[in-house]
Structure formats: structure tokens, C-alpha cells
């Protein structure tokens, strides 16, 4: 099997995640799509790690995971806050800054 297939898969997942971010209105789902994109990037890093025969890529993926975890914690807290005050988790409802 061509090892590039992993890369194609990662690109595909990334694109799907991006589309999800653009299309969905539920903030939590948007968040999940972002996680999907991060995971796609991780797959890419891991594959590269194997391609080049060193562990740097895995280290990077590790850091991505840690940062993603931190991001999820804060992001979800914000979503909960927004939901509390506005009773909605839709990203479109938070468009108070527009004209």
C-alpha cells in the first residue's frame, strides 16, 4: 500500500471538519468539527514521523493533543456560559456586534 494514503485520509478528514465548521450552527458541533480537524493534523504528523524515522512528529502530535484538551476545556466553559445567558448554543445568535 502506498503510505501516502494516510496523508490523503488526513486531508479528507481535515476538509470534512472544515466544512462542518462552516456549515453547522450548534457551537458544540462546530467544536467537535474543530477536534476532527486537529485529529486529521495529528494523523498527518504521526505518518510523517514514521516516514522520516524520528519521533519529532509524534512529539508535535502530543503537544497538539494537550493544547486541544486545554482548548476544549475553556471552549466548553464558554459555551456553557453563553448558553446560560442566551439560552442558545447557536453560533449565529452571538452576532450582536453586527450592524
Amino acid at each position: 500500500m502506498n503510505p501516502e494514503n494516510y496523508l490523503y485520509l488526513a486531508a479528507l478528514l481535515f476538509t470534512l471538519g472544515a466544512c462542518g465548521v462552516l456549515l453547522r450552527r450548534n457551537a458544540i458541533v462546530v467544536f467537535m468539527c474543530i477536534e476532527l480537524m486537529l485529529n486529521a493534523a495529528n494523523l498527518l504528523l504521526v505518518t510523517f514521523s514514521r516516514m522520516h524515522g524520528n519521533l519529532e512528529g509524534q512529539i508535535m502530535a502530543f503537544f497538539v493533543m494537550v493544547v486541544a484538551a486545554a482548548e476544549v476545556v475553556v471552549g466548553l466553559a464558554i459555551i456553557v456560559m453563553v448558553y446560560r445567558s442566551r439560552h442558545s448554543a447557536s453560533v449565529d445568535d452571538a452576532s450582536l456586534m453586527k450592524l
Partner: protein
Amino acid sequence: MIGLLVAAPLLGAALLLLGGRRLDRVGHWLGLAASAASLVFALVLFTDLLGKDGEERSLHQHLFSWVPVADFRADVAFQLDQLSMTFVLLITSVGTLIHLYSVGYMEHDERRRRFFGYLNLFLAAMLLLVLADNYLLLYVGWEGVGLASYLLIGFWQHKPSAATAAKKAFVVNRVGDVGLSLAILLMFTTFGSFSFTHVFAGVDGASEATLTGIGLMLLLAACGKSAQVPLQSWLGDAMEGPTPVSALIHAATMVTAGVYLVTRSGVVFDAAPDAQTVVITVGAVTLLFGAIVGCAKDDIKKALAGSTMSQIGYMMLAAGLGPLGYVFAIMHLVTHGFFKAGLFLGAGSVMHGMNDEVDMRRYGGLRKHMPITFATFGLAYLAIIGFPYLSGFFSKDEIIYAGFAKGGNEGWLLGGVMLLGAALTAYYMTRIMLMTFFGEKRWQPDEAGHEPHPHESPLVMTVPMLILAVGSVAAGFVFDSGERFVKWLEPVTGLAHGDSPVSHGEVSIAATVVMLLGVGGAYLQYGRREVPAVAPAGRLLTRAARRDLLQDDFNHVAFVQTGNYLTRGLVYLDHKLVDGMVNGTAAAFGGLSGRLRRVQNGFARSYAVSMFGGTALLVAATLLMRAV
């Protein structure tokens, strides 16, 4: 020592203007003392100079560096040579006499202290002007003179006419000042310096076009200060100031500055014949212009003002003749200083006795009431018309002779013009004399019902007049005997004789004849007949001359209206074009922003789309670069 000449009146001015009311009682004496001190210094320096040989009669004093910036060096330094000395003596002596006269003349003015402060400032500025050893310092004095004249002409600022006259003098002078500043800038770019020494030394190496430019700019400056055509219009209105001021302006200070400038820059003018031609033309035109105006005016001071303009025209013409005429220009300037000061002080004395009446048609027969004034005025009158062996006779004849000596058709033309001017001078001066002192009394009660009681002025006013009368009578003879004045000035200005088609004697006879013609004409018109109290309508030329030969109308049409139209046009352009552009730009940006604002719709997902779109573009660009 030279610095003290300027410092004394300057200190006086500072004291009087800053001292406040506590100096009110002694202010005029203080001002007189400052002026007299300056005169004393001048006399001391004069004897000092006399003790030296002709070529070494030059003193320098370097006070301090004013603006030392790299190549640009402006010094406060004085130069006292024969030319400066002549002016210093004239300024300080006539100035002191006028100060003395003013003590009496301004006795009842509550702002007398201030008046003397301004007079001192005037003297200081004028002395600075003639003593400077470079053009920049000269410019300082030049502007100082302009400022002081503004303050003095507008001294009776409660009169709107005086305030306007002051403004007019100031504005017209500004036009000339632009010329001087341009000349100085040109000098600096051409010679890299503006000290007299460097400029005159560098003249040989400069192109004639540049020198002509400098000369014309200097001439413009001189025209402004000396009231020459085309910048002559301020002089008549300047009569709104107190009469001593008129005397000071006309005899000793302001108007002589232009002649001084041209004479001082003689080296430049000698190297620029075209500029000299223009100087001669200006002088000749002004000579006739002033004389014609002087013939028509009924206001005694304005008639004298026309006379001054005409006499300065003589000097300017002489100065334009180059070495032929410099010496005689200055000589005429000095003699003119004496008799014109005497005339103005006499006029002031007459006005003093006539409740400030200036219309000569309201005078008449004053010789019985004011004998001293009549005598001094009469002597000055004889001097100015060139009565043989009085001062004007010598100086004016020399100038006319120099005009003929120019040679060729030009010489004949100039000589003819000047002889015509001499006739006119005799005519208008005789007219003034007859209307004022002879005939029957024509004065009437003024609006308030006060009948004028003509009386002789106090001693403090008559003494200066007497001294000046002596000067008017004797100066020419003293200067001419043994060619003393010529020898004195020659080292500075140079002297040429030219080849005159007529001899000295012939010129003198011709001048005397035309003078007698002028006197006779005036006598026929004003002596034998009764002078009407109301001026007759007169012919076209008379009417025009009464309006100063339409100088103000010309200025109004040529500059004021043109300026107005130009301004309106510019305002229109500004509104339509500049504002249109600016507002249009603003409106365009406003509209564009209004459209672009829609992009900021507040929806996070729209922003996300633009983010991803941007990313896609970046990736595409990267791939494209790799592909290429």
C-alpha cells in the same frame, strides 16, 4: 563708539516706551537728550574721520555674530565711511532739531512720551540702516524704519484716515521689502555672503543678468521706501501723521533710505546698465509726477509731499547716472534735508497757528502774523527753487549738469526733463508761498465757531526752523566751495565727469531762467489775482493731479480689484475643485465603507468562510509557485 550712535536713541525708545507714565513729565526731554547724544557721538566720529586721509576714512566695528550657521554668517557689524557719516550727520542733526521742535508742537498731546519714543525708534532704525556693514543688518534697520513710520503716521490713530494711511504706508512698503529680501537672497546665492565687502568684491565674477536682477530688486525696495513710481501712493496719505513726523520722513529718514540703498549698491548698479536705465526712468517719471501733483494740491502738506516725491526723483535719477551723479544725489539729499525740513516745520508752524487748518485757500497774508515762520519758510523756499547761491541752486544744477553729461540724446532728454521739473518746482513752491503768506486773509471760523488767531510759534519751535534756514542758505555754498563735498565722498562713490554738450554756466543760466519762468507763472496765477476760497473745477490735468494723478484709482483697478477677482476665483476653485476632491474622496470612502461594512455581518461562520477561503488561496499560491 559707532554702536553708541544707534544705542542712544534705541535706549531712549526703550526707556520711553517701557517706562510707563512716570516718565510722562520728562519723556520729551529724555527723547531729545537721546537724539542729541547721538548727534554728539556723530560729531566726535566726524572729527575723527576728518583727521584721517581720504582712503582710510572708514571705521568698522564688529559687535557679535548674529546667526552663525555653517556658511551662513550674519554679523551685527557696523561700517562708518564717508557716505554713512554724511547720512548720520544729516539724520542726527535734522532729527535732533525735529525733536526739539516736537517738544513745542506736541505740547498738548497727552501721548507725547510715546511720540518721542517712536521718534527715537525711528532714528535708531534709520541709523542702523545707514551704519550696517551688510545687507541683512541693513534689512533690520529697513524694517525698523517701516515699523516706526507705521507707528508715527498712525499716531493719531483715533482718526480713521490716519489709521488707514498708516496701514497703506505699511502695506506699500511691504511690497518694496519683498524686493529687498529677494535681492538679499539673490546676493547670498550668488556671492555666498551679504556683507558689502564680499558682495562688491564679487561683482566682477557675477553674470550681468544676475546683477540686473539684484539691481531691479534693490530698486523695487528703494521705490517702496522713497515713494518712487510705482510705489509712490503712500506718501501723500502719510501726511496724516503729525507734522514733525512728515518732516522727519521727508527730510532725514525714511525716503532717503532708497537713495542710500542705490548709492550704497552703486558697484552693483554700475555693473548692470539695464538696471541703471530703469533707475533713471523711475527717477525721471517720479520727478515729473511729484511736481505735477504738487502743483494741484491745496493741502499745504500734500503739496509739500508732492515736492518731496519730485526732489527724491531728482536724487534717484542722479543715482541712476552712476559715478556721474552719486555725489550730487547725496549732496542734493543733504541740502534737501535742510530745506525740506525747514518747509515742513514751517508748515507745521502755520498749522499750529491756524487751528490745524491745512487748506491753503483758507490761509493768506500770514506773513504779518508769523514773521519768523515767513522768513524761514521763505529762505527754504528760495533754496528749493534753486535761487542762485542758495543750497538748492548748487545741488540741483549739478544734477541737471550730470544729466546732460550722460551724453547723446539721452543727455538732452534727461536735462530737458529736469529743467521742466525745475520750472514746475518753482511754480508750485511759489504757489504755496503766495497762497500762504501773501494776499488777503481768507480764513474763516471752523465748524465749532473758533476764529483762528494766527500767531507766531513758541521759541522751541522757531529755533529749529531758524537753524534749518541757515542750513538751507549756507549748505550749498559750503559744500560747493572748493568742491569739498565731492572730495569728501569721492573715495566711496567714485566720480566721473562725462562729456557734457553744455557747460556748467549754461546749465546754471538755463536753470535760473526756467525757475524765473515758473515763479512768474505762479505769480500771474496766484499773486496778481485773488485766490478763490473754493478751488475752481479746473481742467482735466488739474483734476487728475488733485487725485494724485489717479494713482489710487490705478492701484484699485490694477491690484485691489484684480486681487478680489483672483481671490473669488480661487475661492470658487477651492470650493469646487479642492473641496470637491476632498469631499469626493471622503464620500467615496464613506460609500465604499458602507458597502464593505456589510461584510462585517457579525456571523462567526461568515468569518470562518473567509478564513478558509484565504487558506485555500495561500495553498493554491504555494502550489502554483512550486509548479512554476
